[in-house]
């Protein structure tokens, strides 16, 4: 390599490192600001809960009824427990609609046996266009349970059928492999009861069930997973849900509500066209489209809110093998890119107000492009060292800086969890969470960056499959 080449490379590295540093600083500032907002909101929410009489809500004639929609594709391992757990929720009036999405396992027959299902004649009205239904069953033992059998048509279409069949004005989508607190539904419906005109959707917090002690389909003792890969995800979920989403919700710029546990106003979702077919992450796509639809059609001065709540907690199993984690993250990131790119006209568009200038840029620059910038950083800095442009001291300092910045966000999320719920009681779990917050920066974080970079490449090459992860239960 000639001297001139080296000069040009040094110049390029200089510009790249400036860009990375600016990006990195901006990201840290934004994430810290969101965490601060989360701290403020969490404090308010917890006080509100202290003064809320959930028992009274559970008995009230005026608590709005809810339709719970559970799509199930090959969920034989968990479906009966899940339906049992949902049917025993503490709520005055609700119905449960389980949609068997062409399962090839025992899902339907197990449901038939467990809940004494009887086939019914039906009239099916398609408020949202969907595929056809094969059969509808009502339970002889649980009058508020309906089971629908249909050909496999994907999660979006299945959810849309659930919406079409829902009797009530609110519907709650949940995953079949999740566990709930008994008053989770009362808690998630609260913002709509308080502001029925304004709130259009509410999301609950998703926590890692691996390692927890479960009795009668309820998590009775939250514990950290024994397997390190799952334990890293506990800290990651805290960062994503408790720290980031709560902050975004406070400024009404939240573009993701996890489909694992989310409540929607049915008429609003129907007007927006329901879940979109051929999407990789239908939950994010719907929320982005709801924002877009409402901002395009609302009357002047009409307010709306998409709310995230930290206290309705839903527990879900996370992948414990690298292969499944890679598939899950790949799908999530492709879904994110797809949702953003399909609604890219919202970016910096004054018509979409704060979502156009804060929410969309946040997801576009930090969530979507973040892994690529981080990946480039990981390549460029060592490259500079090997080419003799950077000193070893510089390389080490830069890497330490990246590590400590990542650790800060994770420890803040743990602090927020400690100051609010404090679910993990033992000092051993506390020490482990703090060490996970540090050690996730040595390998785990880079690994998830790689998964997401691969997802970006896959997206560019047109990969659109759903890539379901295989269940790996390790609850106690």
């Amino acid at each position, binding site marked *: 390599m000639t001297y001139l080449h080296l000069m040009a490379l040094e110049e390029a590295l200089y510009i790249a490192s400036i860009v990375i540093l600016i990006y990195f600083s901006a990201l840290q500032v934004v994430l810290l600001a969101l965490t601060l907002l989360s701290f403020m909101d969490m404090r308010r929410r917890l006080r509100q809960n202290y003064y809320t009489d959930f028992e009274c809500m559970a008995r009230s*004639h005026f608590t709005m009824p809810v339709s719970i929609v559970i799509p199930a594709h090959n969920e034989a391992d968990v479906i009966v427990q899940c339906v049992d757990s949902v049917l025993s929720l503490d709520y005055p009036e609700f119905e449960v609609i389980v949609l068997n999405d062409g399962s090839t396992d025992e899902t339907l027959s197990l449901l038939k046996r467990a809940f004494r299902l009887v086939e019914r004649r039906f009239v099916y009205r398609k408020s949202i266009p969907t595929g056809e239904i094969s059969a509808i069953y009502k339970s002889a033992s649980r009058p508020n349970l309906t089971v629908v059998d249909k050909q496999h048509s994907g999660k979006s279409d299945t959810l849309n059928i659930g919406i079409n069949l829902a009797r009530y004005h609110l519907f709650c989508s949940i995953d079949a492999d999740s566990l709930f607190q008994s008053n989770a539904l009362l808690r998630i419906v609260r913002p709509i009861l308080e502001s029925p005109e304004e709130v259009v959707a509410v999301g609950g917090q998703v926590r890692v069930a691996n390692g927890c002690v479960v009795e009668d389909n309820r998590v009775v003792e939250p514990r950290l997973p024994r397997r390190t890969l799952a334990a890293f995800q506990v800290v990651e979920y805290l960062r994503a849900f408790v720290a980031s989403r709560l902050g975004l919700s406070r400024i009404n710029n939240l573009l993701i509500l996890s489909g694992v546990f989310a409540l929607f106003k049915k008429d609003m979702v129907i007007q927006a066209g329901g879940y979109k077919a051929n999407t990789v992450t239908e939950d994010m796509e719907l929320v982005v489209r709801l924002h877009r639809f409402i901002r395009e059609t609302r009357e002047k001065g009409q307010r709306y809110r998409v709310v995230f709540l930290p206290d309705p907690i839903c527990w879900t199993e996370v992948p414990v093998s690298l292969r499944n984690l890679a598939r899950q993250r790949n799908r999530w990131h492709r879904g994110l890119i797809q949702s953003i790119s399909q609604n890219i006209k919202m970016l910096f568009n004054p018509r979409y107000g704060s979502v156009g200038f804060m929410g969309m840029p946040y997801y576009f620059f930090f969530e979507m492009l973040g892994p690529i910038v981080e990946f480039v950083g990981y390549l460029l800095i060592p490259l500079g060292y090997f080419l003799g442009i950077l000193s070893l001291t510089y390389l080490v300092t830069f890497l330490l800086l990246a590590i400590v910045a990542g650790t800060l966000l994770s420890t803040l999320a743990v602090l927020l969890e400690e100051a609010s719920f404090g679910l993990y009681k033992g000092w051993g779990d506390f020490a482990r969470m703090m060490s996970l917050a540090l050690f996730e920066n040595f390998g785990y974080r880079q690994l998830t960056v790689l998964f997401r970079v691969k997802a970006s490449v896959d997206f560019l090459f047109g990969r659109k499959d759903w890539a379901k992860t295989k269940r790996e239960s390790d609850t106690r």
Partner: protein
Amino acid sequence: MIIPLYILYWVFVILLFFVLATVLAAGINRVVSSSRQAREKAFRAKARELLLSFSRETGEGRINLLRDITEFLTPDTAEHVALALHRLEPPSRREVVELFETEGLVSHFTRLLKAGSKWNRAKAARILGELNLPVASAALYKALDDSDPDVRNVAARSLSRLRHPMAQSVLISVLGKHEEPVSSRIAAIFIEAGAASVPLLIKNMRNDNWRARFWSAEILGQVGDQRAERVLISALGDSSADVRSAATKALGKIGTGASVEHIVPLLKDEEWFVRCHAAWALGQLKAVDVIGELAEGLRDRSWWVRKNALEALANLGDSAIPALMHALEGDDRFARESALEALQKLGVEVRGSGREGTVRAR
């Protein structure tokens, strides 16, 4: 050098400082919150223990316990004592509540309810509600107009516990004035009062505010007292669709045959939710004379109206069979399918229909 090393170094040091501070804060928070939780738990247990012993003891022991409760009672512990009061029989309860008054805690919390910080106002509202003192009710009524929704909510909840004879006459004046949770809490007070609240609610159906009329109709339906039938029938012609809808629903629950002829015109109301409730109410009232009108409802442009008309017809039993059979031959596919479903609900076996391929019985 690309970026001066010392800048990276200082950023690193600052971030590291924050990491350590965060870890330390989390650790301190864990210690502090567990000791706070332990203290609260101890307060709760002690309050419960004192009150239980007080309820059992007599004579000298009782006087001593009253002294112990007085010593224990401070603004910090008052909430725990107040929340444990429901464990006492009325005479013992009265004695302890008197302590709150003599110790100046009632006036302390009444002041706090007016001028404290948001959460202190909420706390004061909660304690005053538990004390169930007429002197506190005026402050709680005022708190319904608090600038903060959480305080209003707690005040409504406290008022619902008061069961004060004056409560209803005051609360009726604010019915429908507040947001949904507060209004539904106030409504629950009237529902719990049952028949005693009916005259007030009937009178309130003449209120100028449509929200007040709406909530009154809702409550009258829940209370289920037939004295309200006449006023609810008058409300069927209300200018507000919400009131018409609530009145129709209420008549479906408490009405008699006399209501039917007044509800029928609402099957043609301009608002779908009024038509929908009218169909439901007619089914509940077993209005066999209006089967034709209900069968018309099967062709309504709103799905909910068609659904309720169908369920109403199924509710009417065998008398509805001819109308449903007739609907099987109509042009509207949904009406045909709905009629088929209703007939099957009534146990009629239908094999095919005039329109092969569109309606089939299994």
